[in-house]
């Protein structure tokens, strides 16, 4: 499948503020592509550039092979689902959904057919005559989707459409969005600051910070192999152990923590960043509690200073003299972890887990 969207060296400034700085990325046809980053990172600016609401200062946007320069939103084959949904308050559900078809002068018979198909797909049958103010949050969401999807856009642009929903509904809508996207096969370009949302729905995630894309990849790749501290910290939880030295001695890295602990890692130092400060990054769930001393593991001891029960998981905060304070997360499998009264525990992680990153 080819690239439906090509963004090439796009920049956009607001006065002195660089909202988007020399960004390039491609979106494949039929892909669920997410731009993930904190607020103010420029992700919404990119979306609005693609939708035609603002124009980039430099660079090119190509959609389906055509340069979009100077093409207004109503003549682009994109459609946007707005953060506040922007449902028309003076129209009922049906009038909202068929608005785009009316503007395209679609014949009434075809409008009826398409309307029926989209409300069936999205589970909105029978809602046509209701005013949009009489709908629940999830229903409004689906009306906004239907209104955009019915015009069969080449790409659907979604600007944090789930942000206003409560947690439970948000998670239900995440699953639903993904299913809808699979079913209809439209390319989705999704903007969010919620890493959980991006991880569960996306085929590809582009992590953004301060107007730049800093890492692109599949959700599992980005989670398991962040190549910078920002990504590692922004997605999921992590321990960042400050290091005093890293030496490459053949098979493994020999690492020395600032607090004195020495351990090994099978990871590689990405590229020479000799001037920056090295940090060892390891996810809390990669650290195990116990003293069964498996092969090729780093073993340390520490004192539990806090434990939090989270249902499926139990989270510990452990103070280790040689490493500093660490977060450890274990599955709640019914067997209590071996912690004695003094709170002293032994923990370990495999050489292959974790990696050296640079600040």
């Amino acid at each position: 499948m080819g690239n439906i969207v090509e963004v090439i060296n796009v920049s956009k400034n607001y006065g002195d503020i660089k909202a988007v700085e020399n960004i390039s990325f491609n979106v494949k046809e039929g892909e669920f592509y997410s731009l993930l980053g904190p607020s103010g990172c420029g992700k919404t600016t990119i979306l609005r550039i693609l939708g035609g609401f603002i124009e980039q200062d430099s660079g090119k946007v190509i959609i389906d092979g055509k340069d979009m320069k100077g093409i207004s939103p109503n003549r682009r084959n994109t459609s946007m689902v707005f953060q506040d949904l922007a449902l028309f308050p003076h129209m009922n559900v049906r009038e909202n959904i068929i608005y785009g078809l009316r503007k395209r002068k679609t014949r009434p018979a075809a409008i009826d057919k398409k309307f029926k198909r989209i409300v069936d797909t999205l589970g909105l049958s029978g809602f046509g005559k209701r005013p949009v103010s009489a709908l629940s949050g999830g229903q409004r969401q689906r009306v906004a989707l239907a209104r955009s999807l019915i015009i069969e856009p080449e790409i659907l642009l979604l600007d944090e459409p789930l942000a206003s929903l409560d947690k439970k509904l948000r998670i239900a809508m995440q699953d639903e969005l993904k299913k809808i996207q699979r079913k209809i096969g439209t390319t989705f370009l999704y903007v969010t600051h919620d890493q959980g949302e991006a991880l569960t729905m996306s085929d590809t995630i582009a992590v953004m910070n301060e107007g730049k894309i800093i890492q692109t990849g599949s959700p599992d790749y980005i989670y398991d192999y962040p190549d910078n501290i920002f990504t590692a910290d922004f997605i999921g939880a992590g321990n960042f152990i400050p290091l005093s030295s890293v030496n490459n001695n053949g098979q493994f890295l020999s690492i020395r923590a600032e607090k004195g602990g020495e351990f090994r890692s099978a990871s590689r130092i990405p590229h020479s960043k000799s001037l920056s400060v090295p940090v060892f990054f390891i996810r809390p769930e990669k650290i195990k509690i116990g003293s069964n001393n498996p092969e090729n593991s780093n073993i340390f001891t520490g004192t539990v200073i806090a434990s939090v029960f989270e249902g499926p998981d139990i989270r510990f905060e452990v103070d280790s003299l040689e490493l500093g304070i660490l977060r450890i997360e274990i599955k709640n499998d019914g067997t209590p972890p071996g912690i004695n009264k003094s709170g002293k525990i032994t923990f370990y992680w495999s050489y292959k887990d974790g990696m050296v990153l640079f600040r």
Partner: protein
Amino acid sequence: MSTILKKNRNLAFPGLLWFLVFFLLPLSVILIYSITERSLISGEPVKFTMANFVQVFQKRHYLIILLRSLRISFFTTVISITFSYPVAYFLAKNTRHDRILIVMLMIPFWINYLIRIFAWKLILSDNGILNQVLMGLHLIDEPLRIMYTQTSVLLGLVYTYTPMMVLPLYASLSRIDDSLIEASLDLGASRFRAFFDITFRLSLTGIFAGTLLVFIPALGSFAIPAILGGTDSVLIGNMIENQFNIVGNWNAGSAFTLSLAALAIILVLSYSRIFGLESIYRNRGI
């Protein structure tokens, strides 16, 4: 109603009393005058009659004045919508200084409106500022006859009541989210269609409120036509004032007053029916 409001229901009492005394009482007096003969305080026995109302609808002269008032109020409203819409749109959408600009819009209200109307007299009269400027520029040879015509009355009414149109329009326009316009464009509407489908439709509530605030006072106005108007621009308000102050027939004046009020109520009700404003209100609240 929350309990705290329920408990303090009695707090409404002074307000209600005020209304009762200063609104219902005069209205009742007018009502009684309109259906009786002669003065109530003359000491003679009270005689009820419908004659006062009958003459309102019988004399052709009165009908002409009524139609003239309706026509001038209608044009006042239409012209003030035309002037106010761009101003209100600018205030709501194109500037961040809307608050200070609205205060400036209200500054003329700090000066008594009679004085402002007299100022118009200086501008519009035969050797007034306007005519002198136009003649000085050799655009006209003879002074334009504007003063003491229906044109000058219309001008005075538009001038006085246009701010009343700007405010509700501004309020309704600033409530419209820009994302609604963007959604409309995004779905394929041209800028013009998007304006008409979204902005204009959602500002109808403002137009409606503004129309009430302009049309009703214009219909009942008497000072402006009295100062700026001539013999061909007597309005209903002048006629009513005439009945009370000059003719001294309070009974006829009261019948005129109530007929005008009834007409205004009928117009407002049919107007809101035609524009289907209830549906707009019902669908709001997104």
